[in-house]
């Protein structure tokens, strides 16, 4: 394939890649989320990738569980709450 041909298909490839990105849910990797140091290591808040810190330090539903950085937060009044 010549350079000209490669350049010709580039916009198509970029469009396909963008479409794939738009339709794929974000993976639950927890990348960029970390626990804020706490006196009780089982009760730490999380700082999420948007820079906000969770309002809660244990799960909203299973109250005894610590927060899981792989579960994305839900937002109440713009503030994140975390889950296990």
């Amino acid at each position, binding site marked *: 394939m010549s350079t000209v041909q490669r350049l010709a298909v580039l916009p198509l490839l970029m469009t396909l890649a963008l479409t794939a990105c738009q339709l794929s849910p974000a993976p639950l990797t927890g990348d960029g989320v970390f626990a804020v140091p706490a006196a009780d290591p089982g009760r730490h808040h999380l700082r999420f990738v948007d820079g906000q810190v969770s309002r809660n330090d244990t799960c909203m539903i299973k109250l005894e569980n610590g927060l899981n950085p792989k579960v994305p937060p*839900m937002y109440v009044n713009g503030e994140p709450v975390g889950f296990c």
Partner: protein
Amino acid sequence: MPCPDVFVQDVPAVLNRKGLAFACYMDPSRPAICDSDHAVRINYETYLFADGAARERFLGDIVGFCGMLTDPVTKRRFRPGAGSPYHEDAATGVRYWFESPDSFELFLAMPEVYRLPGYKMERGSVPPRT
């Protein structure tokens, strides 16, 4: 059912059980009343208000006031604009805004898949308490 799914279906009850309080979204100098009459759910986000007037003011210009939302299809956070597609889900009464026409169409095709966050966790991924 994943915890976020349980949460978004009755946020005031869960917050009260947990004992978390919030300030009014429209007037942070006043405490929000945490019940269904003073709450609005948009997408997966919930907004709490001090009184009916604050709630009505918010509902009068949701896009202007809501800030970032989570697209129910891509699960990405985005800021809706005046031209963003939206849909009021007849089954739940929840209004959803979408970051793109593609998301909008996918939601309409399979609302039962996207109404709730539906985050799936691997078994044993919950960090143990010490």
